[in-house]
C-alpha cells in the first residue's frame, strides 16, 4: 500500500519534470536567433508541402497555441520531417531505438555484475596489493576519455589485428544475401557489437567496482557482521551472504544517478563506431542542422533517463523498505 503511494508520488514528480523540460525546450526554440519556421521546414520541400507541415505544427498560429500544438504533437508522435532522411522523424527514431537499447543495457548489466563481483573481493582484502591494483584499474576505467578508448580499441583490434569490423552494425553482404538465415544475421550483429560493447563495458565497470568496494567497507562495520562472525560462520559465508547483498543496494541507486553521465558516454561510443542508435543520430543531426530530428532524439533521451530513474527508485524502494516513508 505504502509502496503504491510512493510510486504514484514519484510518477507525478517525473511528469512535472518532463513538462518543465518540454516547456524550456519550446521557449529556447523561439528565443534562438533565426526563423523558427525555417528550422522546422525542410528547404527542399515544395511550397504546398511546407504549407501543410506549417499548419500541422501550428507554426502560423500565436505563441500559446503553438505551445499546445507542440505538446500535442509530442504525445501523438508527430515530430515533423527529418531534412537529411526525408522521412517522418518518428519512423527514424523507432528504427534506431532498439539498437541503442541492446547495446546500452547489455553493457551496463555486464559491467554491474563484474564490477560488483570484483568490488566485493577488493574490499574484503582491503589494503592488499590486489586491492590497490583493482582500485587503480577501476579508477582508470572510470576516468578514461571514452572516444579515445574507442579509437584505440578500433586501432588495435580492428585495424592492426583485423579481428573485428571497423565501424557499423551490419555487413551488407550478409544482409543482402537471400541465403543467409536469421542466425547468420544475428551473428553478424554480435560480431559488429563486440567492440562498442567492450568500450561501454570498460567505462562502466570501474564505477560499479568502486561503489561496491566503498559500500562493502561501510557494511563490514555493522553489528550483524560481527554477529555472523561470532556465530562461527566461515568468512566466505559472511562475505557472500551477509555483507554483499546489503552492500549491493547502493549500487542500484548509482545506476540511476550515473545514467545521465553514462548516456553521454553511450552517445560518444555510438558516434565513433557509427552504431545506428539514438545518441549517434542526435550528434549527426546537430552536425547537419537537422533540427526536427535533433529535438526528438533529445526529448526521447530525456524521457528514457527519467523513466529509468523512476524504475531504479521503485526497485530500490522494493528492496529496502526503509525509504518508503
Amino acid at each position: 500500500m505504502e509502496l503504491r503511494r510512493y510510486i504514484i508520488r514519484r510518477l507525478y514528480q517525473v511528469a512535472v519534470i518532463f513538462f518543465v523540460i518540454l516547456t524550456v525546450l519550446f521557449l529556447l526554440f523561439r528565443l534562438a536567433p533565426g526563423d523558427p519556421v525555417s528550422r522546422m521546414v525542410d528547404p527542399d520541400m515544395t511550397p504546398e508541402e511546407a504549407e501543410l507541415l506549417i499548419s500541422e505544427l501550428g507554426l502560423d498560429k500565436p505563441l500559446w497555441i503553438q505551445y499546445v500544438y507542440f505538446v500535442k504533437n509530442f504525445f501523438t508522435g508527430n515530430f515533423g520531417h527529418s531534412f537529411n532522411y526525408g522521412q517522418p522523424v518518428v519512423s527514424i527514431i523507432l528504427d534506431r531505438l532498439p539498437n541503442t537499447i541492446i547495446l546500452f543495457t547489455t553493457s551496463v548489466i555486464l559491467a554491474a555484475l563484474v564490477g560488483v563481483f570484483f568490488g566485493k573481493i577488493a574490499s574484503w582484502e582491503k589494503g592488499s596489493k590486489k586491492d590497490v591494483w583493482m582500485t587503480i584499474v577501476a579508477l582508470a576505467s572510470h576516468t578514461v576519455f571514452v572516444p579515445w578508448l574507442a579509437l584505440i580499441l578500433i586501432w588495435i583490434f580492428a585495424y592492426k589485428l583485423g579481428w573485428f569490423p571497423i565501424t557499423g552494425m551490419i555487413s551488407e553482404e550478409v544482409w543482402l544475401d537471400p541465403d543467409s538465415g536469421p542466425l547468420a544475421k544475428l551473428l553478424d550483429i554480435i560480431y559488429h557489437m563486440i567492440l562498442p560493447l567492450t568500450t561501454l563495458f570498460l567505462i562502466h565497470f570501474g564505477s560499479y567496482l568502486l561503489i561496491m568496494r566503498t559500500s562493502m567497507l561501510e557494511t563490514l562495520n555493522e553489528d550483524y557482521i560481527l554477529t555472523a562472525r561470532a556465530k562461527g560462520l566461515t568468512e566466505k559465508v559472511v562475505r557472500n551472504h551477509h555483507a554483499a547483498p546489503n552492500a549491493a543496494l547502493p549500487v542500484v541507486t548509482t545506476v540511476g544517478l550515473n545514467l545521465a553521465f553514462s548516456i553521454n558516454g553511450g552517445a560518444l561510443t555510438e558516434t565513433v563506431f557509427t552504431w545506428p542508435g539514438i545518441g549517434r543520430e542526435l550528434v549527426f543531426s546537430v552536425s547537419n542542422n537537422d533540427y526536427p530530428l535533433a529535438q526528438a532524439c533529445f526529448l526521447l533521451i530525456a524521457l528514457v533517463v527519467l523513466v529509468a530513474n523512476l524504475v531504479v527508485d521503485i526497485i530500490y524502494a522494493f528492496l529496502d523498505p526503509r525509504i518508503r516513508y
Partner: protein
Amino acid sequence: MDKRIPKKHARAKRLLSGWAVFRDNLLGKIGLVFLTVFALMAIGSFIPPHIDPMYHPMTGVDPQIYDSTGPSLKHWLGTDFMGRDIFSQLLAGARIAFMVGVSAAFMSIFLGTIIGMISGYMGRWTDTLLMRIADIFMVLPVLLVILILASLFGQLNIWIIVFIISIFKWPGVARVIRAQTLSLKERPFIDAARVVGASHLRIIFRHIMPNVLPLSFLYMTFMVTYAIIVEAALAFLGFGDPGTVSWGMMLQWVWKTGHMFKAPYWLLPPGLCISLITLSFYMLGRAMDDVLDPRLRKEKTVV
C-alpha cells in the same frame, strides 16, 4: 592579539595532521605529481611560439611540411595534417583543460554551496522548490544539452560552454551541502546566534558557510574532472570553440582527417593527457576525502 596566536597554531596543526593522512595515500600522491606535470605543461605552453612562430599551436605552420609527419628533432611529437607542431598543441591543451576545469568547477561549487545552504537552512517550500530544480538539472545529460543548444544557437564560445557545464553540475554539490546544513542547523551555536539576533543571511554566511566550505572544496576536484571530460567530448564531436586548441580538438582533427591509422604519434598523446588529467584530479579528490573523512565520521555519529 594573544588570542590569535594559539588559533593559528591549531590551524597549522590541523593542516599538518591532514597532510600526514594525505601522505599515506599513495594514489593521492601520484595524482598530485601528475597534476604538477600538467601545470608545468600549461605554464610552458607560452614558450614555444616565442622560439619560432611555426610552433604556434593554432596558426604556426612549418613551411617545409605539407602533411602529418612523425616525431623528429624539430617536432618532438610530429606534426598534424597542416604541419602544425603536435607538442606545442599538447602544451596549449593543458592550459585549456585547467582553464575550463577550474573555472567550471569554481562556478558550480559556488552555486551549489549557496543554494545548498539556503535550501537546507530555510527548509519548507524554498527547500522543495530548489531541490526539484536540482532534480531537473541532474537527470539531463550535459553533453547532449550542449549539443541541442549548439543546434539552436550555433557555435558556442568556450566561456558559454564553461557556464553551461557549471549550471548543470551544481545540483550534486547542493545536495551534499544541504544535507550538511541540515545537521549543522540543529547545533547549539546556531541557536545561540539566532537568540543574539543574527539575521538569516548572517547565520548562513558567518556560521554555516565556514563549516561546509571544506566539503565544497572536496567536491571541486570531482567537478574539475567532469568539466574537462565534457569540454573534451564536445570538442571531439566538433562543437568546441574553434578559437582554442584543446586536447579534444586535437583528437577530432586526427579522427576527422582520416589520419588515425597512419599517425599513432598524433592519436595517442591527446587522449592520454585527457585521461590522465581527469584520473589525477579524481585521485586527488579521493585522497582529500580521506583527509576530511575522520572529522565527518565523528559528526555523523554525533547526530
